[in-house]
Every structure is written in C-alpha cells, then in structure tokens.
C-alpha cells in the first residue's frame, strides 16, 4: 500500500513526558472511508496520540504522515477535521450555533477572505448532518451538552474534511445525541469516503459500524483488528458496561 493511500499513518512513534514514555512504538493507519475507533484505559496515551497525529506535538522518534505529508508540511489543513474533547465555552459566549459552525470554514477559504456565496450552503449541510438546522440562530450556550457537541462536530464537517479525528466526543452525551452523532459519522465515512478516527471509551453507539478497533495500553497498541474478533471472545463494546475496564485490561 503506497504511503499516500493512508489519510493518517503513524510509524513506530515514541513520545515521552520527561522520562515517562507515553507512546512507545505506536504504529497506526487510517485509510479513506475507514471507520477506526481508538480506545484504552485512562492514561494509556490516547490524547497524546491524537495531539501527535494532528501535528500539535512532535514525536520524539518515529514518523507521522497526514495524506502522505508530515503534519507541518500539509498545506491543505482543511482536509483534517478535528473535534476536541468537550470544549470549554466561555460564560456568556455570545455566539450562535451558526457562527460557531461557520468558524470551521474560515481556514479553508483563507483567513482574511470574506465568506463566499457557497459558504452558507456548506454550513446548512453540516447543520443538517447533525440535525441542528432548527437551532442555527440559538446561542450555543443555550444548547444541552449533547447538542453543543453536535455543533462542534458540524464545525469540523463544514470544511468538508477527508479525515475526521474526534477525541471523546460523546462522553456524557444524551442517548438521542449519540444516535444523531452515529448517523453523522456513518454518513460521512461510508457514503462520502471520509476517514474517521474516533477516540472514545463509549463505543456502544457505533459498535456495529466500526471497520477496525485499536486498543492502546501503556503507550502500546495491544489490539488492532475488527471489533468482531474482540466480541467473538465474549467482550462487549456496550456503553457504560461495568465490564468495560476489565476488557480493556484483557487484550494483548
């Protein structure tokens, strides 16, 4: 497989905070149209892996490529959509859902350029995908936590990225929002060919749609295969299952 076929590729990546190794020889790839989930216990290095993959932190050794380029050299950064862990909104943030979503398209058109004619259409489409069209003029601080998270997913979608990286996007989100979230991801991934890397403890909402599951433990990849292979061993990917921490300790 040529390097450029991967939307995201990490080869033997190492990263440490002082002497404490957080990522210890991690290799991972996500291809176009592939829906990959990354999971693991707290402190396993998931968030560090996301930062390194997105170019927010440089690996101490190993290689990271986004669409065949090292992150710093990728000129078309809009090809990468990112939904961070629950964003901390400023109290009284006076911004509508529409304004927040539209802010995701600024980089693609050029930061100093005025909105183009088709920009509102992109915003409309992104809002439709997350089922927030009727809330577009509502201040974002008036939405529920789940709705706010859907707005941030729409912000990531508005630049029509080819790789979507989501870091714990559904932690504590209501069931309806989880279903909407699942529909949005599956549509982008399996219909539009977007590569998706979902980092989450809660995989129940998307368990049936995953192409691959990667389990990280102690900074190492201890499982990288289809979810069916894991569930065949009697392991559940359900939401908030009491056995969740147990199965995370199990593989490898």
């Amino acid at each position, binding site marked *: 497989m040529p390097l450029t076929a991967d939307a995201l590729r990490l080869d033997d990546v190492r990263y440490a905070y002082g002497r404490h190794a957080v990522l210890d020889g991690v290799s991972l790839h996500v291809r176009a149209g592939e829906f990959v989930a990354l999971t693991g216990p707290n402190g396993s290095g998931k968030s560090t892996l996301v930062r390194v993959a997105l170019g927010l932190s440089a690996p101490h050794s190993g290689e990271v490529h986004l669409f065949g380029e090292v992150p710093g050299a990728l000129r078309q950064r809009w090809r990468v959509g990112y939904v961070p862990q629950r964003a901390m909104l400023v109290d009284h943030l006076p911004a*509508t859902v529409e304004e927040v979503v539209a802010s995701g398209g600024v980089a693609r058109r050029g*930061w100093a350029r005025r909105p183009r004619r088709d920009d509102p259409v992109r915003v409309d489409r992104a809002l439709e995908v997350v089922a927030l069209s009727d809330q577009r003029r509502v201040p974002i601080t008036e939405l529920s936590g789940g709705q706010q998270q859907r707005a941030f997913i729409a912000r990531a979608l508005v630049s029509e990225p080819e790789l979507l990286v989501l870091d714990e996007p559904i932690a504590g989100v209501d069931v309806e929002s989880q279903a909407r979230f699942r529909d949005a991801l599956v549509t982008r991934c399996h219909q539009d060919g977007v590569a998706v890397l979902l980092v989450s403890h809660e995989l129940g909402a998307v368990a049936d749609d995953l192409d691959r599951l990667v389990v990280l433990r102690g900074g190492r990849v201890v499982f990288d295969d289809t979810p069916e292979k894991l569930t065949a061993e009697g392991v559940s990917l359900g939401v908030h299952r009491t056995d969740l921490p147990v199965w995370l300790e199990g593989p490898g």
Partner: protein
Amino acid sequence: MTLPLPWPFDRQYMQLALLSGLVVGACAPLIGTFLVQKRLSLMGDGVGHMAFAGVAAGLLAGVSPLWTALVAAVAGAVTIEWLRLHQRASGDLALAVFFYTGIAGGVVLTGLAGSLNAGVLTYLFGSVLTVSPADARSIFILGVVILAVVAVSWRAMFAVVLDEEAARVAGLPVDALSLGLATLTAVTVVAAMRVVGVLLVAALMVLPVGAAQRLARSFAATLRWAVAVGVGSVVVGLAVARAGGLAPGGTIVLVASATFALTSTIDLGRRRVRAS
C-alpha cells in the same frame, strides 16, 4: 476650525475631544470583545502600565510620548502573548509581571526627570479636553488602522478565541493572529491614553463588552452593541463632564459602568421571567 455643532460640542476643544473619544469608544470595545472571550480582560491594564513607562521615557528623552508609549506597549503586549502561547507563564502571571514592571519603570523614569512631571499625569488620568489637533489626527490614524485590521480578520480571530487548538489544526495562523490581537491591544491603549488615561483604559475595553454580552445573542451583534455602548458612553460622558465640571475620563467610564449595571439588571429580569 470649529464645526457648527450644538452644545456641549460647540467649542473646538470639545470637538477634538469628541473626535478622539469616538475613535477610542469604538476601537476599545471592539478589541475588548476578543480579549474578554480569551479571558484576558485585564490585558489592557497590563499593556497600559507598559505604555506609562513609555510615556515617562519619552518625556525624559524629550521626544513625543505617544510614539515611545506605542513602542513600549507593543513590546509588552507581544511579549505577554508570546509567554502565554509558549506556555512559559499563565496569562494572568504574564500580565502581572508586566503590570508591575511597567508601573515601576514609569515611576523610576519620572523620578529621573527630577520631579513629578505634570505631563505624566495627563497620560495617567487622561486629559481629553487638552487634546491638540495633532493628537486628534494621530488618534484618528491609529483608529483607522485598528478598524481596518479588525474588519479583515475578525472572523479568523473569532475562530481562534473560540477554540485555539481546533483553529490550529484547521490551519489558521493562530500565533500570528494572537500576536496581531496583542499588537492591536497596544495600539488601542496608546490611542486611549489621552482620552481616559492608562489607569482606566482597560475599563473601556471590558465594560461595554460586558453590557453587550447581556444584550446580544450572536457574536456579530456583540461587536455592534459593544461599539454602540462605547461610543454612547463617550458622548454622554463628555456632555455630563462639561455640564457638571467633572473629570471627563472618569465620567466616561462611570457612564459605561452604569450601562453595564443597567443591562445586567435587564438580563437578570429576563432570566427570571423565562424561569417562572
């Protein structure tokens, strides 16, 4: 030249004060809207104290204090933001360091001048009624620069203040935009020095924004309301100051404070009605 304006703006010194005040009343809340979202409401204070050191240096050296203040303020603002961006110091610690260094530097330089220079006081507390045509022209030029830069970059700056990390991943030049905002803050502080003084300049960056946040339901509307409250505070403040023989800088800020209190009360009432 005196324009045929009604009282209280019928005299040339009041018209120069009005022109300078309108520029500052529009620009300070405009920049302040972004600073408040970044939780850097007191940045204007820190930069103002650096500007004070620049003023003292200019008076000591016998050069225009406006331009030495601009150099000191821009250097201070850019350094504060650089420290914050590179996580060498938290935002409030970086501000505190420059806040005290600036005021101490200003005091020492003023002392070197031999005695407390009366000129320093006009910058500390503002002296909008003594603004010369040349001062007003300089303030106007600085204001046009600020408005032009904000008109071009406000959408990108909004994306950055909303979520710095996501903006960086998307490819926005976050460092350049943040340093640009810091520079605009410094330019605004210097433009506002003669109007309300360095001790009160941060008030015009924060109070109109606080009032606007309670009236607006979108970011674009917040920018418009903040400018309206800032400009309104200047016009009303100057008129009240002339009528009552009050200090204009302080009066302008008190009008902005009263507007903030009024909008907060209205907002509280609306929330109670909605909750009942």
